[in-house]
């Protein structure tokens, strides 16, 4: 390992590593099918390649599908086969839950099972497709408090916004996260444009990133476009 992802990943431009907060809590928000999971998996892969351990919690998706995301993205971005990078597979664990059964209490129980038995000690947590529409502010506060208690370096959530819902926060974070944006240090918004995808940095705790920056991504690879 000691490897890293292709220079053109938006992650490199964002320089998440220059985060001033610990843990850094991030949110990727977009409409369905635009590329939230792909961006989260990029963050996860970069962490894994640098030797950090990632716990990927996928809500409503299967283990096999999530594994495929990682394998495909690494092949697309770096041209590498995941199975052939020594040790990298051990840096990741996937937990999938049905939407109805996921809760902070259940995650905490599973998380502690892993750590207490010395099976896996995560540095980074990914929670893909968290149900922001049906959770209360206190649910999320509890979850974030749990992340802080467990000394994780970073956690990233993804949220789905909807076409017909125009509600937005002052900094432009769309519903359903418009009223809880203060709980996150980093917020990225993905929007599809005609032949590209735009990634807007709505909030950042990185000393090297300017809020309001917009990156143009290639829709097939989600890498930064030339120019």
């Amino acid at each position, binding site marked *: 390992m000691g490897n890293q992802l292709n220079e053109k990943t938006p992650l490199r431009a964002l320089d998440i590593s220059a985060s001033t907060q610990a843990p850094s809590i991030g949110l990727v928000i977009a409409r369905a099918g635009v590329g939230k999971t792909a961006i989260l998996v990029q963050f996860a892969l970069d962490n894994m390649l640098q030797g950090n351990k990632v716990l990927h919690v996928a809500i*409503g*998706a*299967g*283990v*096999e*599908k*999530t*594994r495929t995301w990682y394998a495909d993205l690494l092949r697309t971005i770096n041209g590498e086969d995941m*199975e052939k990078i020594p040790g990298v*597979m*051990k840096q990741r*664990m*996937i*937990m*999938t*839950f*049905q939407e*109805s*059964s996921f809760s902070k209490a*259940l995650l905490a*129980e*599973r998380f502690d*099972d*892993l750590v207490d*038995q*010395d*099976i*896996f000690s995560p540095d980074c947590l990914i929670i893909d497709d968290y149900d922001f529409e049906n959770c209360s502010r206190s649910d999320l506060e509890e979850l974030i408090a749990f992340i802080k208690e467990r000394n994780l370096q970073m956690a990233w959530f993804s949220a789905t916004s909807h076409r017909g819902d125009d509600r937005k926060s002052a900094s432009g974070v769309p519903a359903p996260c418009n009223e809880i944006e203060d709980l996150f240090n980093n917020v990225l918004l993905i929007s599809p444009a005609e032949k590209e995808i735009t990634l807007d940095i709505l909030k950042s705790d990185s000393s090297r990133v300017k809020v309001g920056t917009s990156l143009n991504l290639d829709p097939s690879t989600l890498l930064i476009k030339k120019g």
Partner: protein
Amino acid sequence: MNKDLSKVRNIGISAHIDSGKTTLTERILFYTNRIHAIHEVRGKDGVGATMDSMELERERGITIQSAATHCTWKDIDINIIDTPGHVDFTVEVERALRVLDGAVLILDSVAGVQSQSITVNRQMTRYNVPRIAFINKCDRTGANPYKVTGMLRDKLDLNAHLVQMPIGLEANLQGMVDLILMKAVYFDGDNGETIRMEEIPAEMVREASERREALLEEVSMYSEELMEALLEGRDNIDPAIIYSAIRRGTIDLEFTPVMMGSAYKNKGVQLLLEAVDIFLPSPTDVTNMALDLNKGEEEFAVSNNPEDPLIMLAFKLEDGRYGQLTYVRTYQGELHKGDTVINSRTGKKVRVGRLCRMHADEMEEIEDCGSGDIVALFGIECASGDTFTAEGMNVSMTSMHVPEPVISLAIVPADNKSQINMSKALNRFTKEDPTFKTFVDHETGETIISGMGELHLEVYIERMKREYQAEVQVGAPQVAYRETISQRADFNYTHKKQTGGSGQFGRVAGFMEPLEEGDYEFVDKIVGGSIPREFISSCDKGFHKSMVKGALCGAPIVGVRCTVNDGAFHAVDSSDVAFQLAAAGAFREGYLKASPTIMEPIMKVAVEGPSEFQGPVMGSINQRRGMIIGTNEDGSYSVIEAEVPLSEMFGYSTTLRSLTQGKAEFTMEFANFKPVPKSVGDELIKKYEEERKNG
């Protein structure tokens, strides 16, 4: 048998263990009048289900071999292969899928998509087998066909949609609503043999209409006629249009109709038979490919035409009370009693004496069979997977994917009689099952059998005892390790023996390097005749022989490319043997410099059970050097997926039972070979050295 191929269905029934395949098949045979009484798998009446024709299967309640059977539903001829559910017998499932045109994937209404369903679904996808899903055991507490349909979409990525909905569930399961005919269907009589169609219960009409609408919208993609009818807002759409749309989507592998019922409670089976007729393809609806051996194995589509020369594939052998039975599927042409056919592997002519249609243990002699049919032949000497053709053809059906064995054990016959019977049995099993292998270890003189898992080998040992009266003592299971190299290394070795009599001389120089694809490759880069042409093949042989046993732990070596680029010879003393020995010496020299490592088989393990045991189960996997890939939690039930070295999995079923009060189960299949950790490697090397010292 129908000459009209559109009225023939060759189907398989696949599922996770204990999902009720055998019971369902039994009911199908009852409703199609092939059997006259219903027996249960673990029957209280001591008879056992008809498809489990081997004594052992009846005792264990699992189906080991795919027994082929034929039945007729209305005017449709159905050939059914009942396939084993346990992962250890996966090759049997794969072989069955190879010869089938369609399949029924059975799911448990409570557990839904289980690990084996995923494996079987993957296999069906590999062989492009269109499928219908049947959610069985809807009478069980906790049955939820809607949830299972969701799992089919999420976990198996199938475009699965219900074409029925249940009337009542669990103990109150009464029947189903047919969403195409919009009728309630009930199953009356002692064995559910009388179908009663009624109006849909008033309280279900609205939900049924909504579900039908969603179904029609989905399948309208496969039929312009249906799309038009929907756009026009027609109320009474001809069911034939809907059937045709679903059939198109199913055959194109873009849609999976979901049926439901309870085979045990005799509900829904006849509707499934209807669906097999309506939705699954006939032999002419699918394209099967063969290889033209005269044109460098060029692929071509078989014609299905009975007028064309015969092509058929032997997909299963059985040694029954009537002698050797060979199950064949014909792909084109016709076969008549007394015909002579050619085995394209051996080139030998074979005369077909008797043809039979099989019904588990009973058989019906027939005079001929046509294209697309599945029948059994008597007295044909062949191996499983052989292709038979008419004279003058040189064709083979595409070869089947056969995994390498991962486990072996030594067997010693108890007495002389057992020795003879054991040889007979092994000869038969290796022909029947390409994943079961046997050889004699020349150093110890022991007979070694190898296969895909502990249960796989156990079943053959049991069969030796029961079917061949061969009592054998069994050694501890051994993991099939491999050795390989991890870097390039040069060699330059001279073999010289020139003291009196005829001498031996040969020098071989070059290098060895890791080979990504394949076990062994030889490259000749000799220029200027430093090794004469006639001895180049001797070098190849010398290297190849050295691959049999590695220097670290005595395991076979894989993944090596040997290149020779220099050498020397002697006009009198050089010979084939001298160069073979020189190459073997060169291999030894290079091998130790090429960072050799020991590789072990890694198994993909899935443990399923109540979520409350997830912690201890993960701990048990971790203790076994396992790497947990992920966990999947669905309410109170969870699945843990992991990769664990095979050597650590012995006795795991006992551990799992005691950890989970017997409530969890696991399946495993071979994933890949990976280098062993240093501590394990050192241990293996030490053990091998001790064995060699002690002779």
